[in-house]
């Protein structure tokens, strides 16, 4: 039944609305971005073809610093998310009373509107009166107020921590599901042989969740690389550009200064990096499913 020509046609008809929608709202803009990146499109009536000029200009304005910064920001954010996520999943997997409640309490950062969570962090980081600075002073760790978002270095880490905070629930739920899908008899066999809890974690849990770990790191990597709201609300890329990632820079150029052409060139670079990530992701996934990695 399902292999006949009629079935294929029916399937295409079912797919068509979603396909047309994605073509119009994602695929066409993507092509258009590439197109724009070779023009001097801006807030003026005529645009002309400028070849690679936009790309050359990007590398004259120290864009490589921004690329490096984006990679460092993304790397630490994803790494911390994965470490906390795996630890949290192991803790919440323990058969102790209250774990159902803790699993629910973990979800708010992911489920509440992102902007609201970020506003709350904005207050936490507030130099004069915020909680972190306040507690540090009350405990006598720092002498005066610390404006976390006022200095490049601390603002950089502050935005990472907020990004981790928003990402941890999803990573934890995913890793928890991976841990729960490990066959129980593996643990029982190891336990019968006298293997301790930590040994069982290291020799059973960890190897078994490697595929899920890779999948989640890649998904997390893509999402983090694209992260916009957090930095925009907390610092707008400041102070003095210290938290400007590629996406923030693209937004500032294109929407803030109306340089559509130059902005598009930056967007194309972001897409190139993302495609490289995706290439490695799909390669790894196919290697996992064919049994190379285990």
């Amino acid at each position, binding site marked *: 039944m399902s292999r006949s020509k009629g*079935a294929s046609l029916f399937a295409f008809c079912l797919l068509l*609305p979603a396909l047309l929608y994605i073509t119009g*709202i*994602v695929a066409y803009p993507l092509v258009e971005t590439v197109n*724009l990146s070779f023009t001097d499109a801006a807030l003026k009536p005529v645009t002309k073809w400028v070849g690679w000029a936009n790309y050359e200009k990007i590398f004259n304005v120290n864009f490589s610093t921004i690329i490096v910064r984006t990679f460092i920001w993304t790397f630490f954010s994803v790494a911390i998310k994965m470490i906390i996520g795996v630890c949290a999943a192991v803790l919440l997997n323990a058969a102790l009373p209250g774990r159902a409640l803790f699993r629910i309490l973990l979800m708010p950062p992911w489920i509440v*509107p992102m902007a609201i969570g970020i506003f709350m962090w904005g207050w*936490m980081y507030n130099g004069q009166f915020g909680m972190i600075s306040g507690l540090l002073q009350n405990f006598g760790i720092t002498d005066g*107020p610390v404006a976390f978002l006022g200095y490049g270095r601390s603002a950089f880490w502050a935005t990472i921590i907020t990004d981790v905070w928003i990402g941890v629930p999803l990573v934890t739920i995913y890793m928890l599901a991976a841990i729960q899908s490990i066959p129980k008899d593996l643990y029982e066999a190891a336990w019968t042989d006298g293997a301790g809890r930590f040994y069982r974690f290291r020799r059973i849990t960890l190897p078994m969740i490697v595929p899920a770990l890779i999948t989640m790191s890649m998904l997390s990597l893509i999402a983090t690389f694209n992260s916009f709201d957090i930095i925009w609300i907390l610092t707008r890329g400041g102070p003095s550009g210290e938290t400007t990632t590629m996406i923030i820079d693209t*937004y500032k150029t294109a929407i803030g200064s109306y340089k559509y052409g130059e902005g598009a060139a930056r*967007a194309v670079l972001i897409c190139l990096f993302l495609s490289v990530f995706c290439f490695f992701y799909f390669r790894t996934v196919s290697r996992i499913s064919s049994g190379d990695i285990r």
Partner: protein
Amino acid sequence: MKNSKPMIDRYTWYETIGIYAGIAVLMFFVLAPFIEGFLVSLKPLALLFSSPYSFWPENGSFTAYFTLWDRVPMMGWYIFNSLLLAFVITVVVMCLVVPAAYAFARFEFPGRGALLGAFLAVNMFSGAVLLIPLYRLMRSLGVLNTYFAMIVPGVAFLIPTAIWLLRAYMMRIPRELDEAAWVDGASRLYTLRRVILPIAMPGIMVAAIATFIGAYAQQFIFALTFNSKTEYMPIGVGLFAFFGRQEVIWNELMAACFIGITPALLIIVFLQRYLVAGLTAGAVKQ
């Protein structure tokens, strides 16, 4: 420790303490902004802007929850807009995704893997990357500064995850059901409407809830860029109204945040069972 737990699940006292201590640290990290935000919403502005820092709101009150409506009269609209946007986006996404997920789950047709990959690849691009052409597209469609400017792109980026979740659910519906209907002479469309849809309802609910949460949580960048009319703003952008020329009215801002959080919290409380089960079912089966 005299219950009937299997031996392997028993913990010594120091293991128990260790696990709970770990959970406590985790919970503190996750919930600290909410706790602090709530306490701030109770404090009068003068106490907030005083040194040294005090954690507990002395003579705290819920005043901010009432005065915020006077300072930002559009607040009610922002919440309404957020819910409206999330609702419309969810309905449109589900209309597009239910047939598509069924097609992916049931039929073998040329290019199926590639098409599924193409849909999932959408997740790779955030709205920010495609902002420039989308802006021009919205302008040429004449929908800038309307609800549509936020709905149209919002829908596109929620389609992939919804397809993924629903496809996983529909693949578990036994094929024999379709075939039985086919043998009885039911048309394909009739089979989808009368046989598959009712059975897939729990899966559709999970996908719809996940889409609604996503639509409610991530409506910042399009609203920031494609809409400048106050009456259409969702809450994430609308909250900037509390940023005055001189100072931020933090206690009212936090109170407004908590009002904006309420719908999301209600979803967690009432639907968390579906949510965790549904999301994890889709996640691991691949």
